[in-house]
């Protein structure tokens, strides 16, 4: 009788033991699966960002051409772009391993989703090429241009491919805000070229109706006002909220394919725009040094300018009227003084961003001095 009881206890004990061992084994494998899932998600994000990094490098090199990258495999993921303290960050939202870029200027909406990523690079010139601006968007971001001017026409001509709609940036010109029909898009960006959008102004009710499915951060606008100024807006309930406290200056010499103006169309907000522009001004200081030398601020030309000056000092008779030296260093607005001013303004801009607008004037003067040197004097131009 005693032996039977012991046998019963042993069988029960064995079952408990088997259950515990089974549970431990199950937990072990469950742990492995969870860890593996996290690792593979991390891996996916790392791989995706490494590939993006290479694609961005290629797109920057392919100046003025648009690249269309199939990202249908990542259509459910959200890409994010940010820029703070002259460091751009981009990655997959909710995943680790974002990429950082301290050098290149990347203008993109804060968040992107879609099946095709569109990359476009334009050279930023002030007055010579300073760097390539990279614009990033997707097929699911639609741009609506409100109002009519040369810029709208130019933008649409540059971004629309009538033979193949898939090779176009989704953009449309409308007369007024009421005419906007978003369709099935992830977000919309309104580009107001007539300064119609004002801070705290109410959105027209027909538009509000059409935007019901969109979150406030998916409806943004830029409004070009005055000369070389832009304001950034975001929808807030039924009205427009201005994101920048002071008007944002567009530092450029204008003309066709004005990279700084295009950048405002693509930049997520004023902070991202200014952050990337600062990178361009930082690079401008270095490019200025290559052209004018390190000591050009003290009017001691070096670099390419120093070589040209030395050349014409040794050969004063050369050039159309033998006046190359004059255009270089003696005439009223000569290259040397213009270069000095340009570098001084660039250094001031580095210290205080609001001063950067003064670069427009100094770049324009340098451009004129260079034109005089090349065309009037028939001398070797600086650039």
């Amino acid at each position, binding site marked *: 009788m005693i032996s039977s009881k012991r046998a019963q206890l042993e069988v029960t004990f064995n079952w408990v033991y088997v259950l515990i061992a089974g549970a431990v084994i199950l937990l072990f494998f469950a742990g492995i699966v969870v860890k593996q899932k996290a690792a593979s998600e991390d891996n996916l994000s790392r791989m995706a960002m*490494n590939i993006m*990094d*290479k694609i961005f*490098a*290629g797109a*920057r*090199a392919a*100046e003025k051409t648009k690249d269309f990258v199939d990202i249908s495999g990542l259509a459910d993921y959200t890409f994010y772009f940010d820029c703070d303290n002259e460091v751009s960050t981009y990655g997959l939202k909710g995943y680790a391993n974002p990429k950082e870029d*301290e*050098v290149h200027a990347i203008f993109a909406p804060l968040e992107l989703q879609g099946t095709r990523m569109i990359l476009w690079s334009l*050279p930023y*010139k002030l*007055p*010579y*090429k*300073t*760097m*390539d601006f990279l614009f990033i968007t997707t097929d699911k971001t639609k741009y609506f241009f409100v109002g009519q001017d040369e810029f709208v026409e130019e933008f649409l001509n540059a971004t629309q491919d009538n033979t193949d709609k898939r090779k176009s940036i989704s953009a449309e010109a409308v007369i007024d805000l009421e005419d906007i029909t978003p369709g099935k898009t992830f977000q919309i960006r309104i580009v107001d070229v007539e300064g119609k959008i004002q801070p705290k102004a109410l959105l027209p009710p027909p538009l509000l109706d059409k935007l019901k499915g969109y979150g406030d951060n998916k409806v943004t606008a830029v409004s070009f006002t005055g000369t070389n100024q832009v304001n950034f807006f975001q929808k807030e309930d039924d009205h427009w909220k201005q994101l920048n406290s002071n008007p944002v200056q567009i530092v450029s010499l204008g*003309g066709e394919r004005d990279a700084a103006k295009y950048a405002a169309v693509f930049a997520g907000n004023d902070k991202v725009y200014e952050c990337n522009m600062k990178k361009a001004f*930082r*690079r401008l200081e*270095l*490019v200025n*040094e*290559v*052209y004018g*030398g*390190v000591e050009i601020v003290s009017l001691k030309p*070096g*670099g*390419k300018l*120093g*070589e*040209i000056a030395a*050349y014409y000092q040794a050969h004063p008779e*050369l050039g159309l009227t033998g006046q190359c030296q004059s255009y270089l260093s003696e005439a009223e607005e000569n290259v040397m003084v213009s270069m000095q001013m340009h570098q001084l303004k660039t250094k001031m801009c580095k210290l205080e961003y609001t001063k950067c607008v003064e670069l427009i004037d100094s770049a324009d003067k340098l*451009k004129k001095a*260079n*034109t005089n040197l*090349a065309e009037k004097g028939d001398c*070797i*131009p600086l*650039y």
Partner: protein
Amino acid sequence: MHITETIGVLFIFFILVAFGLIFYYKYTEQAIEQEHYQQIDDRAVKLALEVFTLPELACTRGDAELEDYCVDMAKVRHLNETFDIHVKDYYFKLFGYAKIRVVQLYPPDGQNYTLYDKKMPLNETSTPDLGVTWFVVALKDEVTDMEKTPYSFGYIEVGVYSLPWE
């Protein structure tokens, strides 16, 4: 008898586990080595693209488009000075551990320029690997004898340093 059998089974089991581990280690080592070289190739291509579009090197024509595949020698002659001064605060972020050279091929009497050379800090006995790519360019030198054509022919050598694989 029962114990000997158990020991035998365990022995074979551990041998199989050891084989598995060795196989996995070798496979992983090979995969890491492959990724190491893949990363060097990627960096080399990225750097070549970067150098290809450098405004500090490019030949300009006023407001017109830049001349493709062209290097302005008047800038090149002074570029290493700018690169040297700003290597820490700027250009290292752009190029990393790399070497950039401009080499003139024709006419053969031209000078070659090492614009940037930042080696990896390694111990004294080992030297870093250098993965190199080249691209052919026109070398434009306007600040030269009027009798000569301003264009000569050469290439840009772009190399990326990496830790030696051991």
